[in-house]
């Protein structure tokens, strides 16, 4: 499994260096700023997108769950990281890779940025299927760019995606333990005319 994982990242990263514009596009996509901000903006936009009071409350509660899921997925990734410090591909196969990104120092499994992206996409999907699919596509592209850049193995990306979606599902389920607090938070923000 580990060998297939390494073979895929070496093969995919081996395609770099041929078409500069594609490499540059992957560098932009892999950036710490572009896709994470896209996920945050999607959640921010959905907060204001409801067309009637009932729809607004539903969107806003889902966005609160989504934001909590983002934080919790970070915590889950951290917990996995302290129990398994998987080296990055460029550490184990440095000679065979053309690194397109800075060398991160945290463990490889699971991919934290992908976990965050998939948690946000799952939140968006639960209120708008079509928009959610676009978000899943963006999160997948984010993961692919990091894979192409040589900083993650494919199983890190899959692991990150699973963590993001599972944590979102668990967080939505956990909401039942925290009601009526979640609804009251939305009412408080509504008291400031922002919900």
């Amino acid at each position, binding site marked *: 499994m580990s060998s297939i994982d390494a073979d895929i990242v070496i093969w995919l990263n081996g395609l770099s260096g041929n078409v500069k514009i594609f490499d*540059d596009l992957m*560098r932009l996509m892999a950036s710490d700023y572009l896709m994470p901000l896209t996920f945050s903006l999607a959640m921010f936009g959905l907060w204001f997108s409801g067309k009637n009071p009932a729809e607004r409350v539903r969107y806003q509660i889902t966005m609160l769950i989504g934001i909590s899921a983002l934080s919790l997925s970070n915590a889950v990734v951290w917990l996995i990281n302290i129990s398994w410090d998987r080296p990055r591909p460029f550490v184990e196969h440095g000679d065979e890779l053309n690194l397109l990104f800075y060398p991160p120092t945290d463990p490889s499994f699971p991919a934290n940025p992908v976990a965050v992206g998939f948690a946000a996409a799952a939140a968006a999907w639960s209120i708008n299927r079509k928009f959610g699919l676009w978000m899943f596509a963006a999160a997948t592209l984010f993961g692919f760019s990091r894979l192409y850049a040589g900083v993650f193995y494919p199983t890190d990306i899959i692991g990150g995606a699973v963590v993001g979606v599972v944590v979102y599902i668990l967080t939505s389920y956990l909401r039942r333990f*925290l009601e009526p607090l979640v609804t009251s938070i939305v009412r408080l923000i509504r008291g400031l005319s922002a919900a």
Partner: protein
Amino acid sequence: MSTDPETVRDVFASHYFLFAFLASLGTLQIAVANSGTRGLWLTPRRLVNRWLGVALILSGIALFFLMPLWIEGPWADGSLQADSIIREWGQARWGELAGARNVNDIHGGLDGTKQAIWFPLAAILAFAVSAVIGALNIRNLNRGDLAASEAKSPPTEGGLAGLENHSYFATLPVSIREFWTGIGGVWRTGLLAADRWSLFKMFFGRSSN
């Protein structure tokens, strides 16, 4: 020039804040144009707001990623040297622009926590700017039916629903009043409707019944 991580972080934080502010303002304009929340529109026309939103998002992205061309930072040789600690401080060239912003957080890039602080601040500022300009719009620019209806009838609903036809400042007192008069009922109804495993129902459920 120093490549001290704190100096680099300051540069990144100010650029990121501008990026997040413009993109949030754009996203907000698209969202409120679609939902008809006129009190937050930057212009009186829905279609103009929508395209202004797209333009603001694209300008935010372009500005953030093109800035290394004219502002000095730790991005020179960005695409040539992946290891951000050995980069030179200077302006980036076109060819190395795509990787110029890829600086590790231990060398001054913004980590997730810093972004989680700066993004909400930028989003709140975008909301505040929309509320102020939206109020000026309703009062000064749009002297048609909307302005007349606002003058004749004060808002009856708080929250975003009230912002559909009134300014933020006209709606705020109603929202605050609604919150104080309604929160007790929301809490009690919520407790009654909550799952039996709800922590709050366990602690407060009996007393509210």
